[in-house]
């Protein structure tokens, strides 16, 4: 289930989405004032997402398409939910002549990049890996203009460049912590923690009063550590501009702001937990698959994972009722927020044949609107206007979901550059730096402030290299 490295890799590069979507509101497209749509009428005869009418358009199209996915679990015979094959079978009821062949990849991020650089016949639909936005049109077909697409889907700006949309998110998630309600209760915790200090205290209580591992890091799986990066933006700041705009120009962003918010305090939670022995004893041999069952039955009190993990953990044992989901314990001016955003997005090969592109477009739209796939994956609604929220978000009543705003014009790829230069790779698979926090805290060989100092230096250097104005 490495598959679900959702935020780690995706939000990552991508970043963007225009509107702050909160639970009650479904969509709000009004803020896209700066986008222009002068050419939209010219699209009518061209292939576009908006023009596809499921069940009517391309009804007689015959095509075999190849779909490359990161979801290795959905082809597994033992998977206890709907598998790809099930979705495809339903799809074929509406489009009997479009055959979808799926290939799932374990090392998704690096393998797909290799395939992209290797040539343009990798298949027809893939989940867009970490490419620069400026290169999107080299590899992927536009679904339509931003204007058009925002009427069709939420999170349309996840892979938008120069007013064209190249990716449709397969799902969207909010960030928080999965926890075991029974264990929290047994430890005497009556109210969910709202600040890092409260959280660490609660973990200590759990350690004293129960046998559960307070916070399980899933260090060995690596991608699981990406959750900590994901908290940095919305959850830790409540600022939708933070990730793609503020962070780029902020001097020493990893300094303690002193009010218990910001990236510093996110990573400090992990450091303190590791330092105080509130994590598993041997983090080098952790086991992702069994951790789900352990949280379910109360051997583990909580884990840092995106909302997608909730249903898996509920289903991993016989105590699904004990499993809860909470937002990250940071409070900004009395209010709690949670980072939210699009997951891996479908991209269509710009070099495929016309028929295959049409078939792919139909398939993507069907997966988004008719398959029920996003809901099955405990995703926030993808189809515009859809208001059906999965169960996991029931605990988010007082929490505002924050979707990252896009970068300013001309800075679309700046975050990628800074990430690469600094090698911090925030929200871009930079799991090793987070693992080092665990190591340093456990070994006691570097203080947290020193680690943050190193990160600040790396970030500053990267900003200098890219000539970023810093404030």
């Amino acid at each position, binding site marked *: 289930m490495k598959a679900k490295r959702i935020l780690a890799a995706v939000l990552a590069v991508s970043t963007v989405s225009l509107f702050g979507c909160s639970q009650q509101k479904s969509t709000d497209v009004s803020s896209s004032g700066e986008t222009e749509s002068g050419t939209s009428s010219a699209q009518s005869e061209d292939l576009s997402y908006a023009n596809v009418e499921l069940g009517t358009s391309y009804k007689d199209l015959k095509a075999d398409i190849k779909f490359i996915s990161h979801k290795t679990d959905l082809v597994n015979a033992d998977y206890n939910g709907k598998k790809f094959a099930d979705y495809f079978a339903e799809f074929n009821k509406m489009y009997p002549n479009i055959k979808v062949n799926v290939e799932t990849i374990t090392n998704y991020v690096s393998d797909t990049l290799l395939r992209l650089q290797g040539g343009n016949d990798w298949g027809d639909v893939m989940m867009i890996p970490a490419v620069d936005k400026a290169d999107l049109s080299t590899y992927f077909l536009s679904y339509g203009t931003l204007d058009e697409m925002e009427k069709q889907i939420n999170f349309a700006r996840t892979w938008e460049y120069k007013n064209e949309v190249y990716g449709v998110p397969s799902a969207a998630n909010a960030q928080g912590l999965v926890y075991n309600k029974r264990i929290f209760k047994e430890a005497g915790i009556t109210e969910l923690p709202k600040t890092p200090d409260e959280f660490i205290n609660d973990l200590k209580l759990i350690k004293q009063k129960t046998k559960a591992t307070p916070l399980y890091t899933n260090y060995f799986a690596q991608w699981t550590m990406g959750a900590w990066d994901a908290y940095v933006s919305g959850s830790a700041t409540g600022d939708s501009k933070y990730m793609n705009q503020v962070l780029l120009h902020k001097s020493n962003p990893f300094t303690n702001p002193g009010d218990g918010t910001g990236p510093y305090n996110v990573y400090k939670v992990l450091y303190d937990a590791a330092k105080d022995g509130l994590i598993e004893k041997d983090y080098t041999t952790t086991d992702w698959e069994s951790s789900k069952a352990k949280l379910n039955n109360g051997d583990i009190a909580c884990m840092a994972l995106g909302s997608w993990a909730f249903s898996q953990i509920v289903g991993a044992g016989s105590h699904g009722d004990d499993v809860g989901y909470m937002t990250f314990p940071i409070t900004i001016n009395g209010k709690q927020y949670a980072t939210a955003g699009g997951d891996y997005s479908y991209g269509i090969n710009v070099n495929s044949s016309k028929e295959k592109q049409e078939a792919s477009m139909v398939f993507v739209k069907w997966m988004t609107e008719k398959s029920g796939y996003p809901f099955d994956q405990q995703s926030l609604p993808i189809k515009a206007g859809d208001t059906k929220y999965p169960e996991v978000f029931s605990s988010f009543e007082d929490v505002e979901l924050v979707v990252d705003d896009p970068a300013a014009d001309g800075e679309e790829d700046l975050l990628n550059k800074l990430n690469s230069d600094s*090698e911090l790779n925030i929200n871009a698979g930079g799991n090793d730096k987070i693992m080092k926090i665990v190591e340093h805290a456990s070994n006691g060989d570097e203080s947290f402030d020193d680690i943050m100092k190193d990160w600040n230096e790396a970030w500053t250097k990267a900003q200098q290299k890219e000539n970023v104005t810093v404030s």
Partner: protein
Amino acid sequence: METNALGAKKRNAFNFKKWSRSRNGQQTFIIIAFMIIPLLLLFVFTYLPFGEMVKFSFYDMKYVGRRTWVGLQNYKDVFQRTDCFAALKLSLYYLLGGVLQIILALYLATILSFKVKLGNLFKGCMFFPFLINGIAVGFIFKFFFTRGYVFDTVLQWCGFSLQNLPYWLKDQSVNNFSLMGASIWRYFGQNMVLFIGAIMSVDGSMYEAAELDGANKFQQFIYIILPNIKSIFVLNIMLSVSGSLSAFEPPYVITAGANGTATYFVVMDRIAHTSQKVGLASAMAVVLLGIILILTLLQKLFFKYVFKNAEDDNPKKFKREQRKLAAAKGGAAQ
């Protein structure tokens, strides 16, 4: 082939005919015919990508997208970064492992080269780990080193108590030794088989003569076996130097290079994959290649010196042994 030659003769009835019939002509023909495929393969799958890699090392580039020429900047970075050369320090573990591995292999090879009950069974057992593929090695050793699992259990049988045992992969003072152990485990059998082959080539009558002279087994080892396999032995040690510098698989499959176990190549891999600095990673590869080449050169000088003083000096044999080891090394790298 004869028919081919005939065909060639018929088609070219002039001077070429004479030439092609001559030994010289046939020689040229066979040289070209036999070499064209292997050279083509070597060029396409080794030197062409190598050239590309060297080219990459002068660019600031990702997997996909534009590249910018940066000259020697990547090389400067390799030397200025703290993590690149710090990672080479880990090579010392693998070097030590390599030496231990050779000594162990030689010891066992010596035993097994003579009459031993169930000798083939023992050989098979010890060569066994070499047959296992890398992914499986990763599974096996995570399993092996997990707290309270295989290794801990066996040590408990031996009277250790679990409290006194370290966490084999977590504890940074031992985890590189754990990986070194896994590396020895994987490759000592292969070394041993090579040594057995070399020892078997020693003329059997020499032992008989030695025994008649009253030499014991240890003396036989020192005075007969060792001189005869000296070159393979010393060369093996030198090869383990380059092997340890480029150690990759044990940390990669067992710990993914986390927790202070990232060797030079693991760091390189991470720089290429996570940070997508393909240019820098290429430069790292070129730098390491340079280091290995220098060491290989030093090794050659060293052997020139050693073999000048050796009584049974035979440059031809030396050359051959050297090639053989290169071959053996290639096998290990697969």
